[in-house]
């Protein structure tokens, strides 16, 4: 039997959740035994070459590129998991959500105390910001949520092993944390 395929994706987050995946220490060897990593920043594959069984996405949705890639994940993953506070709620980047986008950009690129000759970036190569930072489940259907900032390696391990063995995801009290 072919090994289940796993892909991971990164949107508006800090890569902390990916660090946490790596943080499963020597169990990463077990994991590699168990699954094959398809698209992932870990192995630097950028496009899906085939559909995968489980997708883990880190980060909220703050620009058009995030939307595009998240939708691509949804299309290509049988099970899609929102990994970490930013994917689940928008997280720290979503602190800007109560401030109008124009004010945010004005402060960051024009009025900020360290800005010299400021200008709001409009280069066609950078993604266009959305009005808010959205949690993943408002953009695509999410099958499971793993909160945490980041979720601990144990949570990720527990979730993956449960899902791969077809068991229900039932995390013990100490593993569910929002921070």
């Amino acid at each position, binding site marked *: 039997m072919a090994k289940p395929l796993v892909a991971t994706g990164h949107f508006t987050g800090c890569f902390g959740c990916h660090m946490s995946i790596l943080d499963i220490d020597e169990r990463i060897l077990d994991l590699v035994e168990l699954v094959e990593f398809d698209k992932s920043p870990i192995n630097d594959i950028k496009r899906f070459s085939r559909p995968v069984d489980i997708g883990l996405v880190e980060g909220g949705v703050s620009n058009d590129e995030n939307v595009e890639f998240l939708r691509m994940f949804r299309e290509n993953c049988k099970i899609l998991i929102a990994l970490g506070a930013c994917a689940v709620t928008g*997280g720290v980047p979503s602190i800007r959500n*109560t401030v109008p986008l124009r004010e945010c950009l004005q402060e960051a690129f024009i009025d900020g105390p360290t800005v010299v000759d400021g200008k709001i970036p409009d280069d066609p190569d950078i993604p266009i910001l959305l009005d808010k930072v959205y*949690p993943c489940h408002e953009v695509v259907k999410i099958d*499971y949520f793993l*909160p945490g900032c980041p979720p601990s390696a144990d949570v990720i391990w527990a979730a993956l092993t449960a899902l791969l063995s077809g068991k229900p995801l039932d995390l013990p*009290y100490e593993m569910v944390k929002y921070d």
Partner: protein
Amino acid sequence: MSDKPVTFTIDGVEITAKAGQTILQAADDAGIYIPRLCYHPSLPPGGHCRLCTVKINGRPASSCTFPADEGLVVENDTEELNDHRRRIVEMLFVEGNHYCPTCEHSGNCELQAMAYRLGLLAPTLPYFRCERELDASHKDVYVDRDRCILCGRCARASREVDHKVVFGFEGRGVHKRISVDAPHNLGETNLAAADKAAEVCPTGCIMLKRKGFAIPVGQRKYDHEPIGSEIERSRSAK
């Protein structure tokens, strides 16, 4: 309210309430935890959060306000009620702006702990994303309304315990907010850092300055044990 002890049942367990106790108080004494957020043992009940709603002889009512009475049949830990409670906690998370990862009170927060206890992995109700005012004008205390759940504990504590009226409400419906007894901000009030009102906030809304993040992760109040464990322990000890 009864003027003598009464006996009634919660989820089939017979308990005895002292004269004048509410259902929630009697349950606490008996080591039965009824989820709650706006209730505080040193304050009169507020009836805001409705988490402590139980079914009394089949009808829903808040146990923090309902007097214990002889022969009542109370349902508390049922799937139906816990479902509603989880949804109420979820509502609070999307009504305010709760950024747990950056909050000084994370790990000691009763709202967060209640979400853990009730098994809320992620709020999926629509977010309100309303702008809410931050007031850092007071030298020792700040009010971060993003984190306010309108439990009114501060207002009750200020009035009943501190014998001041530093906090109140303003507005109605979704526009309701915590308000302070001054023309502009908290700095103009007579709130003192030692006041009960500055201590009782269940979330990180009303916090003492320069005290945040003092307890390391892993040693915080709800890191290892669900909220309510202290009450339930007294039962298992019996």
